[in-house]
């Protein structure tokens, strides 16, 4: 920073990302609010603390190894090259001088935090799906896995100009439909399959019993806050000012994460129109249900995010709406068919919408340059200038990698191991009593309780269940308390 223009550029960029971090913090506030709203009164504090612990644990593990993975893994390693060891990886190890207060490096911590807030988001998406029966100890292990390992591997592969998926396959996912949302949806699906539904959620004949949120208003407020934080997320996916003039001379613009041109105007248009499409369809298809109208807005943005750097606003609007119509039906079909108890619809809103968003971008942006070509890599499809070209095959396979290979598979293995050592799910008696009941107590001690229809089902269920695993199906002193 030895001249004023250079200093201004660095300080502007540093401040730009710093502001995105502040905005993205709201995503976590929103997720916690939303999840607590969905949870029942007997589980509120456990639900809050489980998600809140994402912040310290993912932060520290992202400091220990997550940031290094992003710079070390773009080649696979072993797909288009080896493990990268250069000045950037050296600066990202936790004992590096750049990972501390350093007069010569003003921005590493801000970049690190911008990526870290994506990590929190990925883990937080999973958190909502598994509420009311997962152990906190198990969830935080899964949170560290997705927040500091699997998502950042996918970012190195498909969300970096030099990532092998970008260079070889032409993968394009500008605002993280697959990189954050599909992987989180795949992870949530795997954990849910191993974890199983909440007690009583499905009847003996497979009928789905509705478990009402304890506070619909809080749930919708949480989603509103997530929308607000999503602005920071979008801004953080851009490089705010870069000379992209190339052979034609100096030309400053914003770029996407792949250093390809876009504008803040484009992403502002497209964020809002995809939100509009999602909310409009969500409202219609759910017949005005507040939860699904707000979730529809979120899913609309997620569906268009892969290509929102380049779409026309009306394309984003149509994509957002169309995908919400699909994922809404898919959510309820999967719920009935496979008895999947996803408490917040995270697999649909993030997983299915993210997957479809990546696939659609492959068709919509077919032939666009994905990134500047890297030396020694021959892409499957190239532009006339030799750059890797965005294409439907690359993005379809990319969506499978995000949702299935990096999302579902590792989470399924980890959840199985946790289940095997009896660390995944709380004991049945604890689940029935409520996860707050023993150690936290009631979150609303001055409000009278009212038994819901579902709680009445639970009380009937417990009389026929061997809750304590002692071979006695009936509660031992039920008759005393009648």
């Amino acid at each position, binding site marked *: 920073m030895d001249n004023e223009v250079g200093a201004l550029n660095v300080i502007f960029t540093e401040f730009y990302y710093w502001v995105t971090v502040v905005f993205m913090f709201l995503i976590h506030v929103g997720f916690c609010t939303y999840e607590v709203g969905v949870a029942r009164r007997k589980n509120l504090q456990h639900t809050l603390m489980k998600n809140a612990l994402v912040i310290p644990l993912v932060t520290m593990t992202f400091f220990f190894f997550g940031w290094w993975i992003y710079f070390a893994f773009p080649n696979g390693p072993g797909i288009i090259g080896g493990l990268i060891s250069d000045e950037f990886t050296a600066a990202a190890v936790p004992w590096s001088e750049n990972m501390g207060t350093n*007069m010569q490096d003003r921005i590493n911590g801000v970049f690190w935090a911008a990526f870290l807030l994506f990590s929190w988001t990925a883990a937080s998406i999973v958190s909502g799906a598994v509420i009311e029966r997962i152990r906190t100890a198990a969830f935080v292990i899964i949170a560290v896995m997705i927040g500091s390992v699997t998502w950042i591997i996918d970012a190195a592969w498909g969300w970096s100009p030099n990532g092998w998926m970008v260079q070889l396959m032409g993968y394009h996912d500008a605002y993280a439909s697959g990189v954050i949302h599909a992987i989180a949806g795949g992870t949530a699906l795997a954990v849910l399959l191993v974890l199983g539904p909440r007690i009583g959620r499905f009847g003996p004949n497979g009928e789905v019993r509705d478990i009402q949120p304890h506070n619909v208003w809080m749930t919708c407020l949480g989603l509103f806050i997530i929308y607000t934080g999503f602005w920071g997320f979008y801004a953080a996916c851009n490089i705010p000012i870069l000379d992209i003039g190339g052979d034609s001379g100096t030309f400053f613009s914003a770029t996407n994460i792949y250093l390809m041109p876009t504008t803040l105007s484009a992403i502002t248009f497209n964020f809002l129109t995809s939100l509009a499409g999602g909310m409009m369809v969500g409202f219609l298809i759910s017949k005005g249900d507040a939860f699904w109208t707000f979730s529809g807005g979120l899913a609309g943005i997620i569906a268009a995010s892969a290509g929102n750097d380049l779409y026309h606003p009306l394309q984003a609007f149509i994509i957002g709406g169309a995908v919400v119509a699909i994922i809404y039906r898919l959510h309820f079909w999967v719920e009935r068919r496979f008895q999947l108890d996803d408490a917040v619809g995270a697999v649909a809103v993030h997983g299915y919408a993210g997957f479809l968003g990546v696939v659609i971008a492959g068709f919509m942006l077919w032939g666009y340059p994905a990134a500047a070509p890297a030396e020694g890599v021959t892409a499957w499809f190239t532009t006339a200038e030799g750059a890797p070209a965005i294409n439907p095959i690359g993005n379809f396979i990319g969506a499978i990698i995000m949702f299935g290979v990096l999302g579902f598979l590792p989470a399924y293995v980890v959840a199985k191991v946790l289940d095997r050592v009896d660390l995944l799910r709380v*004991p049945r*008696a604890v689940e*029935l*009593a409520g996860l707050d009941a023993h150690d936290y107590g*009631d979150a609303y001690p001055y409000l009278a309780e009212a038994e819901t229809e579902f709680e009445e089902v639970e*009380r009937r269920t417990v009389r026929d269940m061997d809750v304590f695993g002692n071979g006695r199906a009936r*509660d031992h002193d039920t008759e005393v308390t009648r």
Partner: protein
Amino acid sequence: MVAVSTGLDSFANPADITAMYPFAGTTVLLTIVSIALWVAWHGRQISDESHEYDEAVRDYERIGMDRVLRRGGSAHIADTEVEGQHGPTGSVAEGGDGVRPGPAESS
């Protein structure tokens, strides 16, 4: 008298300053200690949580699930009763003293 310094003693030449934190050069040790603290945190959390749930299950088995469900857990049932010093119909629970009526009883 010159003060003890844990790192920098002048900001006169900022262009020459790199690490600004105290005890520069100890970052490898700091990393090892921090990772150990992180791993230990998980161990302690798993242990505490398992202990808590074991205790909860023992209490619920003693009290009876039907009663626990009616009263929103065991927090509003007197400790003496949870510990089994009173009978299962303990007079403390019946008589109030912070016992919140369950939904069936309040209706």
